[in-house]
């Protein structure tokens, strides 16, 4: 065997050729959507300008709107980790992007569906279509905060396209609600917005993250459900893993701490995190946190979904009592980006809702967390005394 015959061009491994969408193993669902629109079956809501086009897994381009977005909030984020949602809104406000924070929105209800199966395809598509129609009525474009909502809506979109009987049933329901059947041209996750905004976020960065090592956990329902819609970039992991989250972490100058169980889920389990948490806790700590600690020893875990932040963060307390090798704070890419741009760790990022100790991380970011907490406590006193009813956006940036 000669040296020549065994030579593997390293460039081919480091940077494989761009995928050709002509060779994509899956259909482009958007083409079917437009055909159905031409046939009068549904309305396709177009991505408003300005938008940025980015490459998805098989080389197709996806439009990510920059503003005029209708924020489809997440149950778990708003309920238990509200600094997540607050940071997404704060980022939009910092860039002067117009957006809607609607009350005419329900949960996608997919957490419950994947947990209990107490629903069905018609109901799930009905809930999705009602939310899409509510967004369409405002002229703003759906921006999905939750990874599960994003994945489930992509599944639902495919079902609506391929099953005429389902479409008929859902259209009947929508007629009872006096709403049209609308499907967005692209299903867009907020982390895709952060991904396309990452260089602008870095331009506005006020804190130095060069000493921070972050391990990334990609959300299963972002890139494993209807895989072809997730963003991939040849310059990030050679295009072999989804680029969202990692792109931001690199853009703000932090080091990505890689680890061998990157592709594992967090252990959320949908029903498990609520009624069978021993599984979630074991998986989150033994397969994710401890592996990260051993292999990368990061300062923080950054992820982009409700369940992942919850499971990875909350699971660490109980196992710490067993002297396990844990203790890494967890937050979303939105919170990380907001901190990079100078957001207040409590007024905006609301880290007091998180469980794992984050104070060493804040110190490494140059944040005096004790002074910041004292400021937040003074806000609380103003609310308690009746001086102000709520903390305003202006207060948050004071």
């Amino acid at each position, binding site marked *: 065997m000669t040296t020549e015959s065994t030579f593997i061009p390293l460039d081919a491994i480091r940077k494989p050729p761009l995928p050709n969408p002509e060779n994509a193993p899956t259909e482009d669902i958007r083409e079917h959507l437009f055909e159905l629109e031409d046939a009068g079956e549904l309305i396709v809501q177009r991505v408003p300008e300005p938008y940025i086009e980015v490459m998805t897994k098989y080389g197709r381009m996806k439009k990510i709107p920059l503003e005029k977005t209708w924020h489809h909030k997440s149950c778990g984020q708003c309920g238990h980790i509200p600094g997540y949602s607050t940071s997404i809104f704060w980022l939009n406000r910092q860039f002067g992007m117009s957006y809607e924070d*609607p009350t005419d929105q329900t949960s996608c209800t997919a957490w419950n569906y994947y947990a209990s199966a107490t*629903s069905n395809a*018609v109901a799930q598509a009905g809930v999705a279509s009602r939310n899409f129609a509510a967004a369409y009525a405002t002229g703003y474009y759906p921006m999905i905060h939750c990874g599960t909502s994003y994945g489930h809506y992509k599944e639902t979109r495919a079902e609506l396209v391929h099953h005429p009987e389902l479409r008929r049933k859902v259209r009947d329901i929508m007629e009872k609600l006096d*709403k049209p059947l609308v499907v967005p041209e692209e299903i867009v996750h907020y982390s895709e917005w952060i991904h396309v905004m990452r260089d602008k976020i870095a331009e506005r960065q006020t804190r130095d993250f060069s000493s921070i090592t972050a391990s990334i956990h990609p959300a299963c329902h972002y890139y*494993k459900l209807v895989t072809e819609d997730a963003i991939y970039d040849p310059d990030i992991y050679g295009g072999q893993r989804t680029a969202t989250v990692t792109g931001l972490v690199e853009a703000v100058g932090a080091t990505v701490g890689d680890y061998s169980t990157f592709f594992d889920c967090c252990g959320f389990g949908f029903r498990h995190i609520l009624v069978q948490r021993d599984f979630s806790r074991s998986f989150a700590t033994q397969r994710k946190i401890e592996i990260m600690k051993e292999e990368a020893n990061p300062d923080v875990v950054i992820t982009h979904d409700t369940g992942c932040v919850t499971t990875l963060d909350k699971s660490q*307390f109980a196992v710490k009592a067993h002297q396990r090798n844990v203790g890494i704070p967890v937050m979303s890419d939105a919170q990380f980006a907001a901190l990079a741009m100078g957001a207040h760790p409590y007024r905006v990022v609301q880290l007091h809702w998180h469980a794992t100790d984050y104070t060493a991380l804040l110190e490494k970011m140059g944040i005096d967390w004790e002074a910041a907490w004292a400021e937040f406590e003074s*806000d609380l006193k103003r609310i308690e005394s009746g001086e102000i009813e*709520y903390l305003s956006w202006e207060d948050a940036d004071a």
Partner: protein
Amino acid sequence: MSTMAPPMPFTADPGATLAPNSYPEVPYEDKLSLWEEVKADDRFPDYLYGCYECGICVAACPSAKYYDFSPRKIAQAAAREDVELIYEQMNDDVWNCSQCFSCNRCPRENSPGGLITLLREVSVRHGLATAKEALEGYGRVVYKIMTTGTQISPDMLQPDAFPDWGPDVKKTSDNLDLWRRALPPETLHTTETSWQVSQETLIELYLIWLHSDVMDMIEEADEGLHMIILDVMEETLEDAGYEV
């Protein structure tokens, strides 16, 4: 979306022989009928194309690492239409799945996780005792999502519900109303729902539940819960002028 007649009634009764896993034994025809209902779902053909037995789904599966559970067995039983094994899985294995869809990595393009969604759905629709058992303690979540439109509310953060999440849960619970008012987005000043949902939106959600057979499923799974949810929905809809 089944077009099949429901396989009723089950012949099992409290005195019937229990299988080793404590689920009631039923005639083969009943098991077959359940399986036919799974197959009749429009989504079924997209979830099963055969099985190489390569085990990639098992390697990717979080539940397989901690339970006696295998997504490969789910796909194989379905591909072979092993009705006895499928019935056993409907009563046990399916509730161990994490629904993360890591198994979608299948080179044959199967979705064992998707199959499990269908198997669970049929289990609930027919009120299998094991489905009821799996959903024990989960009723409050179903109630919350169906009646308020958001699943996770801030007031669920109670120390007795989440003792393993540490002492901060109590701190959050003790300060809940104050901390919620210290959130800049106006829609988040809520404690009983994740965000503020308008009454008109809620009415539309109730109409979706009523027109999509979900209430029938809830009735099979938990009659008491069904009555409570229906009461809330009927009161709201009647107040808004709807005839229920």
